[in-house]
């Protein structure tokens, strides 16, 4: 019973951390239509920044600042935001594919740096001894407290995004997704709004990274493999319902249950030699799940109607097609 409880606490904490990621992605994708495939990068930046700033001195990596955890988390958020700002300035005025490619690029570069700059990060051996809040509380109490912290973070992020969504800022974002021309005509700077949304989302991803680092007390580049950090979050958001904050949280819960559940089952049933192969099957399963969702119910579990309208009907961006003089375009024959 006690084991079940601590398992539940562990499980929910991770759901909470991923929920922050999904909510962050929702700001970028659901609210603003930005395609970020580099979530892992911002996640990692948040984690490593906080780790480096809060760990005691070590010969293995940059550290010794011994700063309070809150500061570490904040630094992670800021650094992620700054990197997002850099990428955004270059690519957000271009078509959406370019942002996607740029985010893959930056995530890859971050990964390379984390893996190879051992003076900074201790490379593949990772950084250990990352402090936990309230460390003097031994035992299960500590875990529950951390779960509460993560829970609070989820609530704070959720409320912040909801406020943002209903504010004039959020309304402009929603209008932008549907009628960019009209919004531009009204004098709003499209790129600035996209940039703000992108940076905000990235900052939240950095927060999730920090929470992750302090939860496990140990991080290594492997934990930020695009599979777990980027792809899984996308499936969570799509499954739950893009554009929809509650959908993001629900999707996180559902997909994480499937992911962790299959891991539990494979640990139980699959002999050790076939572990990695079983892992591949789990990835295939989630990939197939994503495709099925896109084909059958792209709006996810909790649809947000405007989002569906904006993305499931053909959008013309005037790239070589005969621009209609009267609002529309040729239909498919």
């Amino acid at each position, binding site marked *: 019973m006690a084991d079940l409880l601590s398992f539940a606490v562990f499980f929910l904490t991770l759901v909470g951390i991923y929920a922050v990621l999904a909510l962050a992605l929702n700001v970028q994708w659901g609210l603003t239509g930005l395609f970020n495939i580099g979530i892992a990068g911002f996640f990692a930046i948040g984690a490593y920044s906080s780790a480096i700033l809060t760990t005691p001195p070590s010969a293995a990596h940059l550290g010794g600042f011994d700063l309070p955890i809150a500061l570490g988390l904040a630094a992670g958020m800021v650094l992620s935001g700054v990197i997002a700002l850099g990428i955004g300035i270059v690519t957000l005025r271009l078509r959406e594919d370019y942002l996607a490619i740029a985010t893959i690029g930056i995530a890859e570069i971050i990964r390379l740096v984390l893996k190879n700059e051992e003076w900074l990060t201790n490379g593949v051996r990772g950084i250990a001894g990352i402090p936990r809040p309230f460390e003097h509380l031994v035992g299960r109490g500590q875990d529950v407290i951390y779960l509460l912290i993560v829970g609070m973070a989820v609530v704070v992020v959720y409320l912040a995004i909801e406020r943002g969504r209903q504010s004039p800022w959020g309304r402009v974002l929603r209008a932008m997704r549907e009628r960019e021309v009209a919004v531009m005509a009204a004098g709003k700077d499209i790129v600035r709004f996209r940039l703000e949304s992108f940076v905000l989302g990235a900052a939240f991803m950095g927060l999730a990274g920090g929470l992750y680092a302090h939860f496990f007390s140990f991080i290594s580049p492997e934990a930020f493999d695009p599979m777990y950090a980027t792809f899984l979050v996308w499936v969570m958001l799509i499954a739950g319902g893009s554009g929809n904050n509650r959908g993001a949280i629900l999707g996180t819960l559902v997909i994480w249950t499937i992911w962790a559940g299959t891991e539990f089952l494979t640990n139980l049933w699959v002999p050790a030699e076939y572990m990695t192969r079983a892992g591949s099957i789990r990835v295939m399963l989630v990939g197939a799940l994503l495709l099925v969702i896109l084909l059958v119910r792209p709006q996810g579990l909790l649809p947000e109607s405007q989002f569906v309208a904006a993305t499931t009907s053909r959008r013309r961006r005037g790239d070589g097609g005969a621009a209609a*003089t*009267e609002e*529309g375009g040729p239909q498919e024959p």
Partner: protein
Amino acid sequence: MSLLEIRGLHGGYGGADILKGIDLRVEDGEIVVIVGPNGAGKSTAMKSVFGLAQVRSGEIRFDGAGITRLRPDRLARLGIGYVPQESNVFPSLTVRENLDMGAFIRRDDISPQIERVFEIFPPLREKRSQRAGALSGGQRQMVAMGRALMLEPRLLLLDEPTAGLSPAFTDLIFEKIVEINRAGVSVLMVEQNARQALGIAHRGYVLALGSNRFEDSGANLLANREVAEMFLGG
């Protein structure tokens, strides 16, 4: 029996109807012009004929046969050529290749048709190996029209052929349209240069807000004071 007949056409692009019951006909050998303010449905009417807009209700007949909602390649084979207003050439293909594309659905020798197009538009002959995207607006329009002529259509649909052209090229294009018409091709065109277009037209239609407002001979419409004030800009 008219060459082209449109009856009670309602349609648009999937949202609210832009066309609210249009009637139109083109007799064999005519030049018919559609004029009217922006948003009147002129281009939509033309696109509906060529299967590029949604027809919700109504009928389109070509030479007596129903052609409503047929696919563009079927219409091309039946003898209807279409020149869109914008993006009407393949910019990275040469002039010659653009013309080849016009006859894409044919697999036989098309050099007589190429020759014919060069006769109508002499400047294209010397530019035949140049990329269409590098040409001037007026020359591109010639390529676009030449491309549509490659299948020797009986009816040519032109969507604002002189849009964005200099006065010299505008005059030239209108001249060529008359020349093509004299060779036996009926023309239905949408034009913003209403005055000049009506000047070469046999008949004209004035559309506004998706329905017919006026129909008369080109000369009569030009002389009509009300039409002049409302739509021709005085």
